[in-house]
């Protein structure tokens, strides 16, 4: 008897609980829904001390840490833009979702899926400070602290089998500290080739998920479980060292790497116009590629000759054959004073067939303006032989994908040995007593290499690369690097001086493969020299 009574008791309990839940649902949740409200933001001054204590753990980083910067102006900007962003994002989301829903819903026998409401709310994401890191590499690193405690209201109504279910997401909160790296920096807008985003810590996520109006996330325990699940999912994708890459530019193209070589042979000129008062002229030819920073090439001067022969060969590095052009300028050499231009012409590189020598006889003009009357006069002709040799695919340096990584040494390097690459980047605060026209001299194993000289610059940038092929790793060697300055002014007591030097032990380079460091110069006040060393082995 007691046994049956217990069974009935349980049965009754089961039925009772179901009924109770249903009645309770209607009583407490269905008839008294908690609406999504705009939170009332009171001014801080009106808060009591209890509330202020609550605020302390959320204090922005820029208040607590001096290495974070305040970016409230950006917060303000986003806040003003938010209503527009909200509308735009929601509309885009609806447009993207609509075809997917239309395609998927018949499969699951769902009649319709509708957004009953879709808004991101009135509260925009905020940045509670930003921190930037400075490195020697060509990159920008910043870490904003993003906090979005919003009040979005996303309600999806699903109709199936004549029933309607609503799922509602409210009060989404995301706190994250992404690290945004822009690299490599390139000399064409927007000045970086890739964006890398990674999360330094697991993000904090919280939200309310309402099914039929009941917030499932309020069930004790479930919320924590779901939160951990989401965190882990995100962490799997983007937690450091995993990154999200967004390519903006093709780095190889943007960095303007050389793509070919132009060989120019200046043959002769004929019937040049007389320039000097006595005699004819002393012509020489200057060659220059447009959009190139390389110094122009000059032929020898043919004295007192209006039909000079040169037969001199030059080669120039081409970076973009589509837009670059070869400028040929004929000058008249003078003992004193300015060398006078006798005429010029321009050959666009795209007119040249690749890998084929073409001899061109060009008229020379006063300038390249076709309307200038002065160009009607005969100034003579110049004959040049031009060959454009594009690099073959396999010659192209493949460092596009793995920038910053050390390349393999080229073939022909002795086994056990390798290639020592020295890249002289830049110097800061170098100053000479008498003049500051700095260049860098590298002394290694009796070999000497020099960068080009920069005029009057205390913060010179060279970006020049030198290579030394070595039979064995230079574990015990040192490299002497010196910043020098010379002045060509006549009558100067100190035509040459040293602005500072540094001796670099190469053992570290061999073990690390690559070192990029700013060295403090010896015998210099504040001078620093940034040098990158690479040890490439096969």
């Amino acid at each position, binding site marked *: 008897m007691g046994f049956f009574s217990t069974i009935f008791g349980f049965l009754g*309990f089961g039925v009772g609980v179901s009924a109770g839940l249903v009645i309770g649902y209607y009583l*407490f949740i269905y008839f008294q829904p908690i609406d999504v409200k705009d939170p009332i*933001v009171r001014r801080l001054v009106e808060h009591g001390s209890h509330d202020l204590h609550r605020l302390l753990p959320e204090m922005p980083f820029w208040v607590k840490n001096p290495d974070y910067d305040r*970016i409230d102006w950006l917060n303000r900007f986003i806040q003003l833009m938010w209503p527009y962003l909200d509308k735009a994002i929601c509309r885009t989301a609806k447009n993207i979702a609509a075809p997917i829903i239309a395609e998927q819903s018949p499969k699951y026998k769902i009649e319709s899926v509708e957004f009953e409401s879709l808004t991101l709310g009135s509260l925009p994401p905020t940045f509670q400070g930003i921190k930037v890191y400075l490195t020697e590499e060509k990159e920008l690193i910043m870490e904003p602290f993003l906090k979005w405690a919003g009040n979005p209201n996303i309600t999806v109504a699903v109709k199936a089998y004549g029933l309607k279910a609503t799922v509602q997401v409210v009060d989404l909160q995301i706190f994250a500290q992404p690290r945004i790296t822009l690299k490599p920096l390139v000399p*064409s807008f927007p000045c970086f080739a890739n964006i890398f985003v990674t999360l330094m810590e697991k993000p904090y996520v919280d939200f309310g998920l309402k099914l039929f109006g009941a917030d499932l996330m309020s069930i004790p325990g479930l919320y924590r479980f779901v939160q951990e699940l989401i965190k882990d999912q995100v962490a799997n994708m983007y937690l450091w060292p995993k990154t999200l890459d967004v390519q903006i530019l093709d780095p190889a193209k943007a960095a303007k790497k050389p793509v070919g070589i132009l060989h120019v042979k200046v043959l002769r000129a004929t019937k040049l116009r007389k320039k000097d008062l006595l005699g004819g002229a002393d012509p020489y030819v200057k060659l220059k590629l447009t959009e190139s920073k390389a110094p122009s090439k000059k032929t020898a001067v043919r004295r007192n000759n209006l039909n000079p022969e040169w037969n001199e060969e030059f080669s120039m590095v081409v970076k973009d054959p589509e837009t670059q052009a070869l400028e040929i300028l004929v000058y008249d050499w003078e003992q004193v004073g300015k060398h006078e231009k006798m005429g010029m012409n321009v050959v666009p590189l795209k007119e040249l067939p690749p890998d084929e020598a073409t001899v061109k006889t060009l008229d020379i003009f006063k300038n390249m303006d076709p309307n200038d009357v002065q160009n009607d006069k005969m100034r003579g002709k110049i004959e040049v032989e031009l060959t454009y040799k594009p690099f073959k695919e396999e010659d192209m340096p493949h460092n596009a994908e793995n920038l910053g990584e050390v390349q393999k040494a080229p073939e022909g390097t002795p086994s056990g040995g390798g290639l020592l690459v020295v890249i002289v980047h830049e110097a800061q605060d170098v100053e000479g007593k008498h003049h500051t026209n700095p260049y860098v001299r590298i002394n290694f194993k009796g070999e000497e290499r020099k960068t080009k000289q920069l005029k009057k610059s205390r*913060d010179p940038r060279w970006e020049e690369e030198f290579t030394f092929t070595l039979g064995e790793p230079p574990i015990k060697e040192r490299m002497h690097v010196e910043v020098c300055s010379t002045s060509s002014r006549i009558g100067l007591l100190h035509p040459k001086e040293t602005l500072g030097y540094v001796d670099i032990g190469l053992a570290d380079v061999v073990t690390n493969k690559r070192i990029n460091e700013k060295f403090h110069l010896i015998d210099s006040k504040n001078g620093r020299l940034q040098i990158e060393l690479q040890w490439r082995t096969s």
Partner: protein
Amino acid sequence: MGLISGMFMGFLFGIALMAGLREMMRYRGRKRITKAADIKLLSSLNRDDLIKICGENLPEWISFPVFEQVKWMNKQLNKIWPFVADAAEAVIKESVEPLLEEYRPPGITSLKFSKLSLGTVAPKIEGIRVQSLKQGQIIMDIDLRWGGDPDISLAVEAALVASIPIQLKDLQVFTVVRAIFQLADEIPCISAVVIALLAEPKPRIDYTLKAVGGSLTAIPGLSDMIDDTVNSIITDMLQWPHRIVVPIGGIPVDTSELELKPVGKVTVTVMKANELKNKELIGKSDPYVVVYVRPLFKVKTKVIENNLNPVWNQTFELIAEDKETQSLIVEVFDEDIGQDKRLGIAKLPLAELEADTAKENELRLLPSLDMLKIKDKKDRGTVTIQVSYHEFNKEEQLAALEDEKKTLEARKKLKEDGVIGSTMDALDDAASIVGSGVGMVGAGIGTGVGLVGSGLGAGAGIVGSGFGAVGSGLTKAGKFMGFGGSKRSGSTTPVNSIQENEGAKPLQT
């Protein structure tokens, strides 16, 4: 029995569970809302808030200037600058050269960059302020300072042949850039950006000019001329209310709202001047008046010879684009052989004018509008003008816009035909406004002999000053200037007649 009690218990339990869930919902909901409010609050803290939270001992690194500091941005800017400079050089060359062409002063046939490198020093952003004065617009003010070491060489061709390389050194720019973002409902949510330099504080752009291998003083007036060109470009293009409108994101948006357009007509009658300064050795000054709102649209009265109290009574109509910030500028010149001398300048802010009522104003002439440059306090006389302002209605505005376009096109055509050297030339004798030197050979003298003479004179002077090698180059420059000048003076007459018909609309009274 068991069934009933069980059901009852279960029922109670079920209801209690729901009540509990509801309580939890309410609790969690409230917690989230409070947090949201807190985060929002902390995103825009001010000094008082912080003192309330932290007490009086704020951390030392916190300050609240009007323009928020952006140290992090400056650090990044320094790093990326060499790359930005490289990328920007090409863009600047492309966009500024046509501008220089447009505003090129007469007497110079070509003004181009021969070298443009922005240097190693990055600009510094002193601060950023964001505000919104109008629905749907965000105003961002950027306080910019750039004491750079750019290496800019201008190839100035004073005539058809000579090219004088002029180096621009020690550039310093202090200005507040205002960017107005027009918001839109489509991604990227910004339909257009308006960029201008704030007039207050006045943009300061300092630089020194150096002729390569010589000194600028050898060609008097050249540096004034370049100064004037730079100034005209800045005040007429960039300085508020003038602005550049950049549409963004390919959204077809009507940006005409944002463009600067005629809002009213200023009718000026230049009546008379009193007690002008005598600048001539023999006789008295030959004064005339130049009136403008924008330097691009200058109008000029006739010259009254040998008179220090001239009466003109000539009426002109000028277009105003922004009554609040623009001013009417009145300049009095003395016509002279060679270069015309400025007798004085006066300014009348349009904001002071009442609509549709003519009012007589007696303005005191000053040596310069830049108060810092004024050295002598001598009385320069007064000029009397009668001004009335008429605000355009829609149709008048459109008509005025059409007119303006036509005038500019007509000038462009003249320029292409080679009748005038630049759009600024449309004002006859504009050369005199921008100063001496090349203007000296370019003004309105008929005889070519005298011109070549003066050119040679300048050249000889330089040789005399003893820059052996340099001198020879510059002598050539001087000579060529002479040729150019004679050419120009030959074309003065057609410019004059065009002036009468097109540019000034003189309403003879």
